[in-house]
């Protein structure tokens, strides 16, 4: 199992396994580090830990070691297996260089999350609503649903997915406008044709 160091509720602990971490009752305000990472990251940025937070330990404990799947750690193994072992058993270097961002306890959690994460990708919500009401209903409603998904994933700390949904929402709105622009003249033409 991979070993993690964790900074949670102002305390730094480690090394520990994912199971131990789950027993601590960590939540998304925690910061973690494991060998291969250049610096401390939010716990939600580590895929397997993010999964653990949302689905519990049962869903992830069966997963194979992911070290080989990540480029950063691949480099590690290429360099020297012994160096890696050394790294695994000593306290993380980044901790000495730079203390992980402290999480002031009186601050509401939601606000703390907003400050640490990048801005939410645009939801394009208002354009999806306008597209629905004036251009083309089906594509516009798809745009609103993507706006919903953007926010939902962002609030769960999954920035990458939120960005993807934001982009798809933008395309749905563009599709809606294009369908509107194509069908409007067709509609005019057919009405004119009926007159003659």
């Amino acid at each position, binding site marked *: 199992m991979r070993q993690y160091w964790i900074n949670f509720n102002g305390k730094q602990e480690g090394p520990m396994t994912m199971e131990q971490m789950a027993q601590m009752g960590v939540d998304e305000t925690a910061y973690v580090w494991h060998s291969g990472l250049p610096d401390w990251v939010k716990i939600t940025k580590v895929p397997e830990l993010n999964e653990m937070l949302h689905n519990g330990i049962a869903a992830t404990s069966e997963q194979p070691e992911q070290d080989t799947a990540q480029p950063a750690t691949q480099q590690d193994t290429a360099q020297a297996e012994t160096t890696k072992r050394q790294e695994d058993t000593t306290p993380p270097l980044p901790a000495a260089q730079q203390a992980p961002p402290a999480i002031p306890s009186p601050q509401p959690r939601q606000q703390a999350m907003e400050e640490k994460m990048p801005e*939410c990708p645009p*939801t394009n*919500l*208002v354009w999806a*609503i*306008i597209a*629905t*009401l*004036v*251009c*083309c*209903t*089906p594509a516009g*409603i798809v745009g*609103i*649903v993507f*706006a*919903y998904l953007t*926010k*939902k994933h962002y*609030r769960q700390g999954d920035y990458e997915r939120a960005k993807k949904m934001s982009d798809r929402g933008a395309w749905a709105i563009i599709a809606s406008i294009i*369908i*509107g622009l194509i*069908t*409007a*003249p*067709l*509609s*005019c033409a*057919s*009405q*004119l044709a009926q*007159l003659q």
Partner: protein
Amino acid sequence: MSRKRIVTLAVIVVLIVAAVVYFVVDPSSSRWMPRCIFLSLTGFKCPGCGSQRVIHALLHGDVALAAHYNAFLLGAIPVIGLYLINDYTPLRSRRLDHVLKHPATIATLVALMLAWWVLRNVYEL
């Protein structure tokens, strides 16, 4: 001139032109104004059907007539305005943005829109 400025100006110009067109032309009697493609294809009204007539009525100050053509859109206009103000003007507030784009808010909007879509076809609203 920055790109943002150009886009803003273009939007304003298009809005003014559209406003003039929709003030002069009455979509309910015009023979060349586009019709809703969804209505033409299926025979069912879409949630936005009547939007051109609503704009024409509003530009002439007739709110009751606008409500008759599409009451949902009439109610949606202030909401859309609120979103636009909070997204694109200096009046934006982070707290309001949090509420306006809360997943529950968006889900409610979709539910209202779908309900209106069904009801207007059932009760000929």
